[in-house]
């Protein structure tokens, strides 16, 4: 396992990492490089990568437990069971053709949003917070349901990621049908 924290600095996830004391690599991705490369729009997201460096299961909602199940309605069990089957005997939940059909690929607006976010992050880091704000806002307009951009930018902008700005975003996202909380396996069955 490799975990990647989409946080603005190492100190944000540090208490969680130190408490868990993981034996696996636990990495920090302030620039959202992995989110960009793997089209990750919310957390937690899991990607399975096989021994040959190939994607065996693309970016998908991946809860490790049921702590917040009442909020999002996704059980962790099916994903964890599928993961165990893959690790122990190589069983995959779908073949390569189905996998490609289920894969969600980035749109031009999503990539524009990531570019606005990258500019905002640079401006923030160089002390231009007012200019940064313009581009964080623009990024959120381009990708209104991307939590890594909208919620992820809140701590950088001095906004409470559990406060009113988040609930405004959450309401918009819920009204849109909760994109992202739709496991690939469910998509296959639907």
């Amino acid at each position: 396992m490799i975990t990647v924290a989409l946080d603005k600095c190492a100190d944000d996830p540090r208490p969680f990492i130190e408490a868990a004391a993981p034996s696996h690599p636990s990495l920090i991705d302030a620039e959202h490089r992995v989110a960009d490369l793997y089209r990750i729009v919310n957390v937690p997201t899991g990607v399975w990568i096989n021994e040959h460096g190939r994607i065996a299961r693309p970016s998908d909602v991946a809860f490790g437990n049921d702590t917040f199940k009442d909020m999002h309605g996704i059980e962790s069990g099916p994903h964890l069971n599928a993961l165990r089957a893959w690790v122990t005997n190589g069983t995959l939940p779908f073949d390569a053709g189905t996998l490609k059909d289920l894969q969600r690929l980035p749109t031009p607006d999503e990539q524009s949003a990531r570019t606005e976010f990258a500019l905002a992050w640079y401006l923030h880091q160089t002390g231009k917070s007012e200019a940064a704000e313009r581009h964080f806002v623009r990024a959120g307009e381009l990708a209104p349901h991307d939590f890594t951009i909208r919620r992820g930018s809140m701590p950088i902008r001095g906004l409470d990621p559990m406060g009113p700005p988040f609930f405004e975003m959450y309401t918009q996202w819920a009204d849109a049908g909760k994109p992202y909380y739709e496991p690939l396996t469910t998509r296959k069955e639907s």
Partner: protein
Amino acid sequence: MGDTFTLIDEGRISSITATVSNDRVRLAPDALKAALGWELKPQGLCKDDRCVPIGRHADRVNANGADLAAVAELLGRPLAIDLPERVACLGASAAQRAAQLASLEAPDFTLPDLSGKLHKLSDYRGKKVLLVAYASW
């Protein structure tokens, strides 16, 4: 003549000279090459063995300089600009990212852990990897 301008190409930061006027950023050909690696040649905008025809952008991308927005459009890449702060960022196109993901070859990356030690995904070849993105927020 010109302004000092910062251009970020997928994380690579260059400080160049550019002319900013009428909401446009114009780069001299040598600045374009220095910051992005693309060079104006008779066959178009070229980098390594690739060339993109200039076509309808000839008035904005020529030997006198290159309009940054036109260059981004020619390369099919998203561009974010902050004119007051003289900074722009070129991102990866949806087509490029989609092609990479659709190939199922896991994109490689290198990131630090808490101690600053760098880890590269491809160093874990030979093992199954569950890559999990999470956040404190």
